[in-house]
């Protein structure tokens, strides 16, 4: 598709408290741009379609290669990474940019995803080693298991899965697919699994795994293609068995 300009429509918000408004921009087209590089061009000349000078758009990004998770936003209604959203592959115009809906806005496209890190604390999201001193070789681990566990461990806390999950919201207690997936990861590790029950406890009960309605949106939205629904199904089994055991041996 040949275009002279990239037409952007951005949902803006000046502070955490003020209300949102829309602003549109036209940025000269170059081949091989992505949403981040368009926003970078814009701040070199922050003028809106009406020709008025305006504040440059605020957004988050670090790595620009889809590995840090910073740049999530809604692009034409879909949660995804801005850095890997290639302009040449987006046919719709204008391109609509909005902050993620399910997290508090800090400014413009930048949101506060602290809650995702808090949930990692809640699920004991670490391998509880005695200390970082040398103790010789770690445990052996079969390569075939390592390969699927590695897939899970690539989660970059971007929040696209939570954004797309119908059961997750700022107000719901549901912990969401990202943290559940991490439970599976730590429970797969030979040392990590020593805290297995603690993690299963953390995702049972209110806000836990049973709040998932199996809508499968999360796995489709994950830019790292993490098999989230497989993780959820797997832990559903584990929590059920563990729940029975807990009940039997009470």
């Amino acid at each position, binding site marked *: 598709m040949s275009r002279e300009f990239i037409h952007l429509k951005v949902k803006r918000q*000046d*502070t*955490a408290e003020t209300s949102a408004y829309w602003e549109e921009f036209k940025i000269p087209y*170059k081949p*091989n*741009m*992505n949403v981040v*590089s368009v926003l*970078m061009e814009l*701040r*070199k*000349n*922050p003028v809106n379609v009406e020709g008025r*000078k305006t*504040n*440059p758009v*605020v957004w*988050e990004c*670090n*790595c*620009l*290669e*889809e*590995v*840090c*998770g910073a740049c999530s936003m809604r692009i034409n209604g879909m949660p995804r990474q801005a850095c*890997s959203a*290639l302009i040449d592959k987006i046919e719709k115009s204008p391109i609509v940019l909005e902050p993620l809906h399910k997290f508090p806005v*800090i*400014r413009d496209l*930048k949101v506060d*995803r602290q809650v995702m*890190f808090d949930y*990692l*604390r809640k699920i004991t*999201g*670490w*391998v*509880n*080693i005695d200390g*970082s001193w*040398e*103790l*010789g070789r*770690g*445990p*052996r*681990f*079969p*390569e075939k298991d*390592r*390969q699927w*566990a*590695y897939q899970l*461990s690539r989660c*970059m*806390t971007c929040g696209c899965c939570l954004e797309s999950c119908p059961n997750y919201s700022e107000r719901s207690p549901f912990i969401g697919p990202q943290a559940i997936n991490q439970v599976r990861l*730590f429970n797969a590790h030979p*040392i*990590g699994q020593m805290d297995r029950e603690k993690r299963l406890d953390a995702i049972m009960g209110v806000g836990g795994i049973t709040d998932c309605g199996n809508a499968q949106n999360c796995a489709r939205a994950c830019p790292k293609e993490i098999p989230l629904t497989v993780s959820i199904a797997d832990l559903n089994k584990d929590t059920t068995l563990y729940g029975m055991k807990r009940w039997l041996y009470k």
Partner: protein
Amino acid sequence: MAEKRIIVVGGGLSGLMATMKAAEKGVKVDLFSLCPVKRSHSVCAQGGINAALDTKGDNDSTWEHFDDTIYGGDFLANQTPVKEMCDKAPGLIYTMDRMGVMFSRTPEGLLDLRLFGGVKYPRTAFAGATTGQQLLYACDEQVRKWEDAGMVKKYEEWEFLSAVIDDDGVCRGIVAQDLATMEISTFAADAVLLATGGAGMIYGRSTNSIINTGSAAGAVYQQGVSYANGEFVQIHPTAMPGDDKNRLMSESARGEGGRVWTYKDGKPWYFLEEWYPAYGNLVPRDIAARAIFKVCVEMGLGIDGENKVYLDLSHKDSDFLNIRLGGIMEIYEKFHGDDPRKVPMKIFPSVHYFMGGIHVDYKHQTAVPGLFASGECDYMYHGANRLGANSLLSALYSGTVSGPAIVEYINGLDKSAKEVDKKHFEQELKRQQEWNDKIIKMDGSENPYKLHQEMGDIMTENVTVVRYNDKLQQTDEKLQELQERWHNINIQDASAWGNQGLMFTKQLWNMMQLARVITIGALNRDESRGAHYKPDFPNRNDDEWMKTTKAKYTPDGPVFEYEEIDNQWIKPRPRKYDVDKGASKNE
């Protein structure tokens, strides 16, 4: 003495490792970072981390690792700390393994190793092609455990502005700014560690995350801390050029069998294999970058006449590539469109890593007592050229040194930060507040991002692979002109909330200071060594230049001193890669 508290600025590998080490010893840590620490630049590292685990029957040894590193660094690094790093590397990797890093495995479940540049044996542990991400996550998780235990308090989305230094010249805390509220505050601490990473943004586009401005290092440089070996900037031979950034195609691509070539007389020409038969495609980065530069720029043999050559993995099996190199296969496919499993990738060298950095002693302390630095922001382990997969190691290892060294330092202090005269904090706060107020009112005609682009362009043009004194001189003049024009910036956005332009304008000033350190450092050094190459002075000159560069700030520009090097372990010898490097003796 009151409760002990330190500040760590930076939550990449080095900062997190140091935090863990301090917390383990019962010292509380305030941890500052521009972004949630889990998004730090260390996530970008792809290829792997070196340690002589010797699990492949090669008789590899930590001595060999040490010798490769010193030789690869062209005899500029102080040898003792490098030796200790290589000795400790295997234990460190095993610790990371216990923390849950999903390292790739051998059929019997041990850590697998791959080949990297400048070495003869597989010595690089890896987790697919996202090793940095996996290592960083493991450290992030351990620090979260300490956070949960109340030992670590995170200040994420805060920017370090400067150190608080008292009349005795001792560091007592920092000034930092909240990136949402824009509030500037002081924080007291018994000691401060900077682990603020590299500075790729000085060159505009690089393989680095775009938060790697080096601004924190630039700030303490202006407060009197020396900056060492600035002129040694690593250019990685294989990156995908882009308008927003150059995306790295890891050296592991060549470690796993990737070949570099272009067309000559209508036929594929594997110039690295032809020129360097002993190491082939796995010559160190400075050598490979110069070769590609020569082929494209001097011989005009780039693909389709452009500055690009092929990095070819298409002869390898797709499943093998997905398992071993999946991370970079995805990046190339996503950002370029072509499938690198089927067609060769097109690449060109890019600015990648800073061997130079904040000058520190062997305990990672700067000349300012109480102010420490470790990780890519220090200058310690790589001499004139870094070997691939050695910087994840140095980032982690330096944290295992700086963390405990800080604890030792604060245990010897006679007064805690809380007992220090308040006026030192007030003075530094006032200085930063005034600077902030000046910038927010700037209503000139320059755009900070365009100025940055101009700086990056001239630095990339003249201070990378090949350096000429007249060009370096012109670059320094241009940098001074840009500094003048910085004062004429129009800040565009004067709001007191989440103002990224304001912060960028501050960072730009600090980047400009370091740009001069790099450029004049290169101008002064009339020899060729590692990444620093001057065709007019093509040889290494040990008599005059086997010395650490130390730049000190003055308002009129940097002044330079040169320091002798610790060469007590390995006698310097010429560095060549067309033949085997030969062995040094471990006596």
